């Protein structure tokens, strides 16, 4: 794929987003208004600008990544617009900010490259833990940075400077920092971790001493779960670590141990915490608990089923009946209006994105970059599987956002940084 084709595809995907917004307008009796133009403009400025920055700061990066991202953001954006015009306006600002931060990331890495991340891994880990703890700041103190509790989870930080309030979820950035640390740690210790094993038939069991990092990651994610009640982030961090540990060592024992620990942790959480228990009920028997726990899931399934093959058409379904349609349930909302055709396209786009990410990892020769590319792609994949699988009742609903598509600024910022890192790695490893 040439650069010119990449640019053309980005423009085409931006046009598609603007066209979908226009279709929503048509469905509501409107037409080509300022929203359509503004959408196209913001897409071109955000992603065109990001594309231009890649040409400058990482010219040898793969051209396959950005068009897929623009298509996904576009598919999510028209649905956000359809559900809540005001949020769509905010999301456009966040697109500009996220692309800007993506460009900043690329610029910061021009001088010393991703090896700087490896060198400062401990600082990055500390900053990430600090970010994770931010929401636990008091909500009522005078300092402009405050924690915030929403729906029983402590995930939000408010930056309140009188004339304006900015809310963000620091975990969206922290999880990237944690992946960077994992990749750097495992790149340093992979040999030791790989070789110290006892064999039990075909399965190799790691030495107890070598299980310490695994146990620490597990404990850390349980802390997130207990302290912040964030089931999704907790699962994501732990799954990301286990997969990366396996990637670094090839020891199946880690996968088995990780799986056992996930199930134990989830079972314990289900017994100990009401909110986890409710999610289990909603997962297993949503139709029997339609009036309360199951309502959201069942509405999501009704949306998908009513959308059927071709969907109702943009603006013509009723995805607004699903609670949290623009965040956790954006997949079901798009599925109602674009139908099976739309959901298959979305899953295919994520498949492509993951394939490109893993391709970058495959082609990397340097272990840290290889593991970082793999780790970043893994958490993306896990996130897609957890939330789409949650909507489809394949796994319990964990309440995390669908990357690039859900409404939410911090998630978009985090995901654009993730894309910038992948692009930087592919630039550094290009032969």
């Amino acid at each position, binding site marked *: 794929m040439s650069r010119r084709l990449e640019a053309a595809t980005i423009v085409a995907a931006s046009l598609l987003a603007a066209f979908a917004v226009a279709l929503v307008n048509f469905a509501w*009796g409107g037409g080509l208004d300022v929203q359509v133009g503004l959408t196209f403009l913001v897409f071109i400025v955000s992603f065109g600008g990001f594309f231009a920055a890649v040409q400058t700061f990482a010219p040898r990066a793969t051209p396959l990544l950005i068009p897929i991202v623009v298509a996904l953001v576009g598919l999510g954006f028209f649905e956000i617009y359809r559900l809540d015009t005001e949020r769509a306006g905010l999301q456009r600002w966040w697109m500009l900010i996220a692309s800007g931060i993506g460009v900043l990331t690329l610029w910061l890495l021009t001088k010393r490259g991703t090896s700087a991340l490896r060198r400062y891994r401990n600082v990055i880990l500390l900053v990430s833990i600090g970010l994770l703890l931010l929401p636990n700041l008091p909500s009522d103190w005078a300092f402009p940075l405050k924690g915030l509790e929403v729906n029983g989870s402590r995930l939000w930080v408010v930056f309140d400077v009188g004339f304006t309030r900015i809310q963000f979820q620091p975990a969206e950035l922290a999880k990237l920092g944690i992946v960077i640390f994992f990749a750097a740690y495992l790149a340093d210790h*992979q040999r030791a971790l790989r070789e110290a094993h006892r064999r039990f038939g075909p399965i190799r069991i790691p030495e107890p001493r070598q299980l310490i990092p695994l146990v620490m990651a597990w404990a850390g994610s349980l802390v997130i779960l207990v302290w912040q009640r964030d089931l999704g982030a907790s699962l994501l961090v732990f799954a990301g670590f286990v*997969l990366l540990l396996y990637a670094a060592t090839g020891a199946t024992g880690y996968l088995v141990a990780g799986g056992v620990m996930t199930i134990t942790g989830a079972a314990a959480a289900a017994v100990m915490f009401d909110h986890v228990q409710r999610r289990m009920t909603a997962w297993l028997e949503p139709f029997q608990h339609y009036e309360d726990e199951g309502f959201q899931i069942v509405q999501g399934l*009704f949306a*998908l089923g*009513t959308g059927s093959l071709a969907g109702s058409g943009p603006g013509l379904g009723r995805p607004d009946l699903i609670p949290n349609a623009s965040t956790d349930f954006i997949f079901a909302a798009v599925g109602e209006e674009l139908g099976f055709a739309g*959901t298959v396209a979305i899953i295919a786009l994520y498949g492509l994105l993951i394939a490109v990410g893993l391709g970058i990892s495959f082609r990397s020769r340097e272990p840290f970059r290889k593991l970082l590319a793999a780790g970043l792609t*893994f958490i993306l994949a896990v996130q897609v*599987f957890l939330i789409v699988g949650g909507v489809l009742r*394949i796994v319990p609903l964990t309440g995390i956002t669908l990357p690039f598509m859900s409404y939410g600024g911090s998630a978009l910022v985090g995901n654009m940084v993730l894309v910038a890192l992948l692009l930087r790695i592919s630039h550094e490893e290009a032969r």
Partner: protein
Amino acid sequence: MNGPIRRVAIGVFVCLGLLLAGVTWYQVVRADELRADPRNPRPALSERGKERGFIVAADGTVLARSVEDPNDARSFLREYPEGETFAHLVGYSSFLVGTTGLEAAYNSDLRSRRDLTISDLVAALLGADLRPKNLEITAFPELQRAAYEALGDNRGAVVALDPATGAVLAAVSTPGFDPASLLTNEAAANWESLLVDSEQPLRDRATREIYAPGSTFKTVVAAASLDTGFANPGTTFNDPVAFRLPGSEATIENANGRVCNDGDSATLLQAYVRSCNTVFADLTIQLGAVDVGITAEALGFNQDIPFEWTIPQAVWNTEQLAADPAALGQSGIGERDVRATPLHMAMVAAAVANDGVAVNPFVVRRVLDADGIAVEENTGSDLGRAMSSETALTLTQMMERVVTEGTGRQAAVPGVRVAGKTGTATGTGGFSNPWFIGFAPVDNPTIAIAVFIEGSEVSGESASGGSVAAPIASELIQTWLAIGS
């Protein structure tokens, strides 16, 4: 490290495959089930405010129309100008409580397809007309209103057919309800109160409920007797005060508790005109369940009758009755397990009027596109010959005698020859269910009627088919002949 990463990659793509299986399951395999789940408000909401086609009566009266919502230019409101009189026939289309009647039966024609879905846009590009279609039906509002008023406070039904074609001239069920009350924001509450109403106004007694037809069923038995040559109007039968059912202590008596004729013998004609249960129980047992069954089935009993919606089958259990003479005797006078809708009993009268050929009933005359061009036209269909021409002629003469000198005298219309048969079926809780079926004018029948009253308040002689149902038929025949002239 590429080995393990590749294996994780395979795992990731297996998971994506699971997601594909998931969307296939919910959006393809179970899509219809999820869409139709009663808790899913989407299908009804998507019809809310959409334009629907007109439903007009045979004389052009508008029965249902969509008008622009004065508060929302893009939305339409459904109106039913004839209200309660057409409530069951036309039905309603409500986003809160569903769709019934012709609104439901012809929903796919009446609804607008202009909802901008991709498949509709493609259809439009290929030249399909997405505008709602309109229905022209066979019923006459004047006759319909006359029937509704004549039924008054009774629970009951009136069905009038064109005996030559089966076109429904009127189909009324009382009590009615105002379909407009189910379109408002209080629709759910209004519907609830209609549901719990002891008078059951939502029930369509004309076409969707089966009742014991009582002595009107003697018309079927008489037709079978004449058709098989088992009897003619002059054939005589025993005339006891009470007929003892074979193999049983039970007896069957006449409505007035007396003999039919002179206590010695009574003719078929006398028994029919005076509606003598004793003679007909005896006759039916002698004739046999099979022969009655052949005529009954030729008249559509035990069969699905094509109609705009599914109507319950009329019941005559030939096999069971062949083995049980006592039950057969009771069934011969339209009691026990014999059942039919008022619509079906109107078909029986129509078959006699139509020279013995039974016709299938229908309501929708034409489906018109938005330009007024008929895209579907219904001229009626025959069920087939139910009895010979001679039988039909003889039976017509017998039925005319019922009105001139028998139990149906109150169905008479001055200057018009009317044929008919009364019935007073045993209802629930000691109440009786009066019936009348008939047709007019005898020399060139243009209307066949069934009148049914459920659980008349007064029992005994004053609540018989002759005294309660026959006068309603008389009124309707007069109204009909006035419309025709």
